[in-house]
């Protein structure tokens, strides 16, 4: 039997915790981050399009099934990458930094953009719940206008159990979608 790979996309605004999320669960090191790239391209004026890096993690289920997690490059000038990443994804997670209301508008905009790419299930992760200024998930739901039918989960991306919970809830939503 040929090996099957499935893909999930972790998206969200700049600094929402996408890299951290993938790092917490991936069995391989997550080496690249977009911050490094943008700093380099700004400094040396290099052609940005040729060197877009993104986060990339892997979970091997067994010899014939592998799950890949892709983090989207956070800056808007890379958003041509989003559609490519979105193609064929099983589902996606929208990460939100719960302690940074200055990023909520962008979070909502990214959510809508991804939703338009593909009708796949998704969940919203109210990340950085350990931060003293974090907004509660139920307040974020209203602030971002997330429908009741969409899961909005508290998350601490540095905590593996929390990351597992978000991915599991997304997978449960995918199962439910299959039932309908």
């Amino acid at each position, binding site marked *: 039997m040929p090996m*099957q790979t*499935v893909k999930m996309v972790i998206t969200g*605004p*700049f*600094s*929402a915790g996408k890299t951290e999320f993938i790092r917490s*669960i991936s069995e391989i090191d997550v080496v690249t981050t977009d911050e490094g790239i*943008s700093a380099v391209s700004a400094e040396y004026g290099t052609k940005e399009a040729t060197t877009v890096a993104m986060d990339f993690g892997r*979970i091997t*289920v*067994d010899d014939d*099934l592998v*799950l890949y997690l892709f983090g989207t490059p*956070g*800056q*808007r000038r890379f958003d041509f990458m989003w*559609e490519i990443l979105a*193609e*064929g994804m*099983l589902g996606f997670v929208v990460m939100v930094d719960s302690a*940074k*209301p*200055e*990023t*909520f*508008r*962008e*979070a*909502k*905009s*990214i959510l809508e953009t991804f*939703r*338009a*790419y*593909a*009708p*796949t*299930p998704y969940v919203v992760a109210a990340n950085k719940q350990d931060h*003293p*200024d*974090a*907004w*509660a998930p*139920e*307040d974020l739901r*209203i*602030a971002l*206008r997330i*429908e009741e039918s969409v899961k909005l989960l508290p998350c601490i991306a540095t905590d*593996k159990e929390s990351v*597992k919970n978000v*991915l*599991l809830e997304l*997978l*449960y939503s*995918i*199962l439910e*979608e*299959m039932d309908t």
Partner: protein
Amino acid sequence: MPLKGNLADFSITQILNLINLAKKTGILHVYEPIVTDETIRDGTGQERKKVMPGEERATVAFRDGKLILATMGNQDGHLANVLQKAGKLNIQQARVIRERGKKYSDKALALMLINANYATQQDVVRSIKQYTLDIVYDLANWEQEPFVLDENAAPSPARITVPIDLQNVIMEIGRRKDGDEPGIELPNLDMALKFPEDPGEKFRRVHLSVEEWRVVSFINPNNSIRQIAKACNMTETEIRRVVYSLLNAGLVELMKPPTSKQPARAAAGGKSRSAAQPPITVKRSVVERLIAKIKET
């Protein structure tokens, strides 16, 4: 967890919407903005100057999702000032009452004024309501002030509070704004509108303008906002403003119109992969294996 933010990112209208829907109790503190040299980044990675809270400029109190009291700057909301502003007391009378009535609560003072025939109970209630609303409408023009919502805090029990429905306040703020509110999330005109689960409850106490009622009367999953605008003879800016207010007042919700369930992809050159593609292409067993693996990871 305190709700902290800046009005540049989360407007008064959005705050009122949150308080209304979550039926919150607490006091909103709004501060003078102090722009620092420190930079922060917004969600797109853009740098901007960090704004820190300076002196407190206004407070707005809420109980169970209703507006109950507001103060601004040196207007501390003393009953004598409130009644003077409403024209129920002249400057002289207000000053005397402020000085002599220091030891009395607003409630005790109100009783004395009513008994002395200076004002009726209705005058007192109306004046406080108007005073509170004036402050909130003023506040709605602020665009860069830091705020904190101190949840479950309550104003001094000595103060008279008048509960005001927030839906009406939100609608009125929308009517007073000309042009687009900067930074608001403008509804996509191709979306349709629907009523919330409990429209009866939500519409019961709301007062809408004729124009707003007309929009509401066209709400139907088959009508896009653009079509409603056409039917009502409204410009895009006009319909956007009305829909934005209706959304924030919790009176309508956005939904995708049935024809565009599969999103149109004009930008991608008409090539429509997702429309042809079923939402999920893997087998159930694959998802179940993924679940088992992540559980044991």
